[in-house]
């Protein structure tokens, strides 16, 4: 099996050469590894490489192809890129700008205040929504000049992380 994996900004080609129980022979870009990999707890792998012992934790991010990967001191975002992903990427290529238009919060929380309304004109940097979580309030600002075209939530709503809140165009 061969796949591409996107790790933060890097895209690596990965090919599994052989798998025998825990023993895995694998190529990442042009480096070959002989590893002993074992899932020891839910989402926790013990990896042995040339006698060194590593622990790696995986957290699925709402999608079987997206992970947060934690090695002992570091945290990475990983995404599996297969045919399906590539297709979706092509289809979404034009949507890069969409990200800039949609305000969202990386953390779950509660909507404290929405100081704009549908049709409001906003300038880049204007606060469009205030979210509170764990006794801390965060203001989210417009990333470009535009008009508020959609507000997906209302004050006092409980929101998930990364859900669209306000759309500006």
């Amino acid at each position, binding site marked *: *099996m061969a*796949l591409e*994996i996107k*790790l933060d900004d*890097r895209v*690596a080609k*990965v090919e*599994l050469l052989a798998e025998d129980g825990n023993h*895995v022979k*694998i190529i*990442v870009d042009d*480096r070959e*590894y002989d*590893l002993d*990999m*074992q*899932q020891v*707890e*839910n*989402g*926790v*792998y013990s*990896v042995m*490489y040339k006698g060194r012992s*590593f*622990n*790696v*934790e*995986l*957290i699925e991010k709402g999608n*079987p*192809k997206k*992970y947060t*990967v*934690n*090695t*002992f*001191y*570091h*945290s*990475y975002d*990983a995404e*599996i890129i297969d045919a399906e992903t590539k297709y979706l990427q092509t289809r979404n290529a034009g949507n890069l700008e969409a990200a800039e238009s949609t305000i969202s919060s*990386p*953390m*779950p*929380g*509660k909507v404290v205040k929405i100081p704009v309304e549908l049709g409001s004109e906003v300038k880049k940097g204007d606060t469009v929504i205030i979210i*509170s*979580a*764990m*006794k*801390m309030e*965060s203001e989210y600002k417009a990333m470009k000049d535009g008009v508020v075209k959609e507000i997906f939530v209302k004050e006092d709503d*409980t929101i998930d*992380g990364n859900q669209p809140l306000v759309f500006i165009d």
Partner: protein
Amino acid sequence: MITKISKVLVANRGEIALRVMRSCRELGIKSVAVYSDVDRTSMHVRYADQAFHIGPAASAESYLNIEKIIEVAKKSKADAIHPGYGFLSENAEFSKRCQQEGIIFIGPTPEVISTMGDKITARQTMIDGGVPVVPGTKENLDDDETALKVIRKIGLPVMIKASAGGGGKGMRMVDKEENILSALRAAKSEARSAFGDDSVYVEKYISSPHHIEFQILGDQHGNVIHLCERECSVQRRHQKVVEETPSPLLTPELREKMGEAAVAAAKAVNYYGAGTIEFLADNDHNFYFLEMNTRLQVEHPITERTTGYDLVKQQILIAEGQKLNIKQEEVFQFGHAIECRIYAEDTDNNFMPSPGLITHITEPMGLGVRTDGYVYEGYEIPIHYDPMISKLIIWARTREEAIERMRRALYEYKITGVKTSIKFLERIMDCRDFRDGNYDTHFIQNNEEFLLANDEAKQQFEDLAIVTAFLDYHHKLKNAQVSQEISKSSRWKDFGRRRGVYRASEN
């Protein structure tokens, strides 16, 4: 008169609720938990002997709902209430209501809470009691002219502070003459919106301040002792992050002087219960009363660890009316203790809170390690309350060894599912100024670059991360196929195999 307590309602949640219940259990006292809508699965509810629902997630309607809590106390026949810290712990009205209902409030009288809760009154009480305070006004600064006059007299730099303040709100530092009035206005406006009260006062600004506090215990018979200090200068936005005892700044002479002042401060208000006198100290060993906290502190375990006394048990004995069973001359500190507060926050992303589902925990173990936490695997940390997940308390014979042990324990501590401050705390333990014991409240600010630096070793582990993600995905694909096969077989067989399949997917 001694009233034996046999059942305690703990009007709190999280780690402190558990911590209180543990001491109750050791004393053979039953504990009653209260919980909001989102806390049904919280650990304090599972740990308590009894538990009652008290309202919606919002604190104002549950953990701050005095009527509801009193009602549960009466229904469950609790003879005492422990307020923990935060929530109603420094609420004079709550203490008063308990009194009226004949329920023992494990804490001081309403009068003392009021006196110490208002900074200006507290300050005046301390001056009257002969406790050194930061030079400054004792009264509200009402008009610009008085303000200018007073501040010129004290001399710049100064700090303008809200009387009803706390948590850094309504505070402004002024070091230039021309900024005095604008800072005054800003402080008043912030104070008004935060506390509904725009009274402010002014204090001399201490330039290399150490935040050092003394733990005191007083009984209802006029006896007051202190259990030495806690150094709390590692702060971020006025929130403590790391605490230790003994303080690297203190000498035995200074400890004795400050300890005496702390006892005097408590005696000035006829204090009983456990309390904390916070001081500002400078590098020249001047110290000034800052405020008194009339409750247990988050960081009380480092005092417990070095002196050996269980502070919650002491609170309960005092509340029962017992005489203090500790004499000042018996108190000594054995070794060194450090506490790190573990927050659910993204330290790489402006310390944004990170609530969510805990998927996996490995707690550190071994010699000199204590954890006080409340989350467990499968628990979802709610968005409504404090982001503190747990406290890691380390003890060793020496400060140096305690730091090494803390590094080791932080290394072992794994919490998966939410972002935590563990990595940031490890950086603090590695920071030269901290290791040298050479720091004040500007420590984090001064070392920000080091503490938040991106680790160059990160790249080294990229391939490891890639390979693991790949393999996990690969196994998921394989199991999805297996899973399809299985679903064709009967429901009964499904049962027997399900466990096997889950397990296989973990190998």
